[in-house]
């Protein structure tokens, strides 16, 4: 279904993430990461950022991490990013 929608989106030139509600990740070298369609921040400190996306979590690890810009649905993270992993929801309340 997602493949069908992504094909339709590329034909109609519509933004993929807005139609599929799936997250989008753009990694700029090792110093910047752009995430679209995230839900909320679960945890944040200088070596880890955990974001909730749909039913999963996106964990970003590195050094001197800071959130450069945050908006509804998009976030730009800067710092020495070493790894990114997709995990199961484990929110800290």
């Amino acid at each position: 279904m997602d493949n069908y929608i992504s094909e339709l989106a590329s034909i109609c030139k519509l933004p993929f993430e807005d139609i599929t509600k799936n997250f989008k990740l753009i990694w700029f070298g090792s110093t910047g990461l752009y995430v679209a369609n995230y839900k909320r921040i679960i945890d944040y400190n200088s070596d880890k950022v955990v974001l909730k996306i749909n039913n999963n979590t996106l964990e970003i690890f590195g050094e001197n991490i800071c959130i450069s810009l945050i908006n509804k649905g998009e976030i730009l993270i800067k710092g020495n990013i070493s790894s990114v992993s997709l995990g199961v929801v484990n929110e800290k309340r």
Partner: protein
Amino acid sequence: MKRDNVALNKVKISGGNSINFINNCVNCGLKLRNIDRTTSRDFTFEINDRDYKQLITLDNRGCNITIDKVGGKKRLINNLIYRIGLVIGIIISLIGVILFNNRLIQVHILGLTRTSEEMVLSSLEELGVTKFSYMSFDTGKLEQELTEEFNFSLVSIMIKGNSLIVNIKEELPSLENSYAPITADYNMVINSIKVYAGTSKVKEGDIVYRGDTLVEPFIKKGEDIVYIVPTAEIEATLFFSNSYVFKNSEEVYVRTGEKDIVCSQINLGVFKISYREKSTSYNEYEEENKISSASFYFLPIIINKRYAYELEKKTITRDFDKEKDNIIDTQKKSLYNTIPENLKIESEEIKVTPITNGYIINVYLTSKVQLKYS
């Protein structure tokens, strides 16, 4: 170390629920920048004025919100308030520059020897040239008025900055009772000359041109020379001529309409700021300079550009019979314009001489005069 953006306010939130508060802000559409976790409970971020007003209305979820650094318009206003002396100084200077920039402050008068400066200044005041008046004088009119009032030989007025510079050449000394020779005022043939005082340099039948000496202002008595005012009566035939060369076909260069900039120079006063030169690709061209003044309110910036206009050779053929009458009328008109008003023309002669590839058209006018010099 990250540099703070001066247009944004730096806000600090502290509390156990800081992350939830940040999520709440983002969900409400606020844009936060450079979020930094300073301690386990404290965050700082930057936010603009409009979003900050909305931020303080939100449920803070038990967090403490404080402003670390004010940014945006408020910061600018605070900076100005704490440096009020500088602000007042800048405003006063600006007012002074705007008020006095285009006003007359000084008048310099140069070249006076016999007339007093006060008289010239009071005359200028009557014509509207007063201190602190706008520098919008008609310098031509002022020159004419001063020349007529004081009988000056020459007056030249120049505006430079906030000053008016008046250069005066006072009346030249009279040439009466000076021993000047009699000279020809026109090109003429001497028909007869009667010298009552002085020494004649010409005789009947001589052809003289304008400026030639006719009678010297002295007489020789043996070895002595006695200077006197020359007096004479001269009858002469004046002749005036004009000629035009007509070519049946000639090659001329005309502009094609294409142009290219070959040199551009920007000057700030006398200092050269920029200079660029390049060669043109045209085979035949002519150059023309164009100067434009792009002066701002205070700086004299002059832009000088040299254009190369492409030329092409064209052969033009003309019909002599069609154009002959027109050419003769034009030549006669321009010749009559050079003749003094009180002269009566006695004869007119038009001569057309054929040459290779054309003709020469000559127009001759003659007049007889009786001149008395004393």
